[in-house]
């Protein structure tokens, strides 16, 4: 598969890969600890539940996606396979984009329904006013 690469070039790629994956991993972990207040307790944007956390998550997903790309294309030699093979492996995985959007949306919706139920349980409901003057059918009044 690597007919166009010399043995030395191949070996270089391996050690480049080792360095790349190691550096990305260390940076990811350091950034996680930084963003979640383990390095300076005042910096906690990684878990603020808002924009900061969203940004943090995008950065983490991006770095991991790059690691995945490198492993698939260079360690698994996807870069040197014919186009048909590459597409037949990669195209089906685009379905996952739909799956992620749909199921996360669904999960978020369960969450907000649960919150709604909790809020409703806390509501104090005024009892309806007693109706005045009505007929009771004969024989229905008991006790």
């Amino acid at each position, binding site marked *: 598969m690597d007919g166009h690469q010399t043995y030395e070039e191949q070996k270089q790629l391996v050690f480049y890969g080792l360095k790349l994956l190691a550096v990305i*991993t260390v940076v990811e972990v350091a950034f996680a600890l930084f963003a979640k207040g383990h390095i300076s307790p005042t910096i906690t944007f990684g*878990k603020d539940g808002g924009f900061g956390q969203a940004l943090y*998550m995008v950065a983490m*997903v991006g770095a991991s996606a790059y690691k*995945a790309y490198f*492993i698939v294309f260079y*360690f698994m030699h996807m870069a040197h396979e014919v186009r048909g093979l590459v597409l037949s492996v990669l195209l*089906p995985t685009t379905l*996952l984009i739909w799956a992620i959007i749909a199921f996360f949306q669904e999960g978020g919706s*369960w969450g907000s329904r649960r919150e709604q139920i909790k809020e409703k349980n806390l509501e104090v409901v005024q009892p309806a006013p007693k109706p005045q003057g009505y007929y009771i059918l004969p024989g229905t009044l008991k006790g």
Partner: protein
Amino acid sequence: MADSSVTHGHGAHGEDQNLWGGAKEPMKASYGKLMMWYFLVSDAFTFAGFLIAYGSLRFSSPTWPEPDFVFASFPFVKAHWPLVFVTFMTFVLIFSSVTMVRAVQEGHRENRRGVVFWMFLTILGGATFLGSQAYEWTTLIKYENVTLERNPFGRYMADGELVDASGKPVMENGAPVVVKKDDSYLLHGHEHDGKIELEKKYIKYTSGNYAGQVHEVSQGPKAFGALFFFITGFHGFHVFSGVLFLTIIMINAMSGLYVSRKNGYEMVEKIGLYWHFVDLVWVFVFLVFYLL
């Protein structure tokens, strides 16, 4: 020499050969390699299903245990070192992936000694990873009492102060213990009549919907334990079967079986694809369980 894997010994017959006979390789990859790729595609969907289930359950919960609080133990050290051990595990897998690439390269050069040497290092890496996972699971199950349906790790829903069962504030160093929204807690367990019971803690909320009320501090989201053990367990099972197959193929390589096939140690290349996939899945397990 380096091209030996392209021809696979029997790929080069004339164009007029019977196309249904299987001699032609439509994707310039052997049947076995192609099927390994498609197996990995289906396996990727299985893992994606698991990880997406984790995501939707997490989104559906008002709180979720904080990974850098949960995963902070380290062998032989009594310290709170968030994410350090799992980073070590990640490095072990990266190293074993790298040694696997080297084994495949030596296979293309038909270098038997090289193949066996690098495969042996790969197996060592896989075994180290499994041992590390055993440590991690032991810590969670034995010392922190996480099971498939019990999760003592949680986070407070709102600000408050800890009180005892009668409603009196819990004092520490002469001051009441104040907790903030999203702070993490672990309910310690103790054995009682052969069953684990979690300690009882109470909180008097000072903010949120329940301000002024005293509530028992409950377990964290229960799905956490089941998701963690199933997903890392499924990945660990992949590592385990990978180590098994790597060992078989290494022994075959030692015996000289692949020398006679003259196809550039294609079997090593196939198990290599599987092994890199295990590393690839770990990238996402690491992301989802430990980083996010």
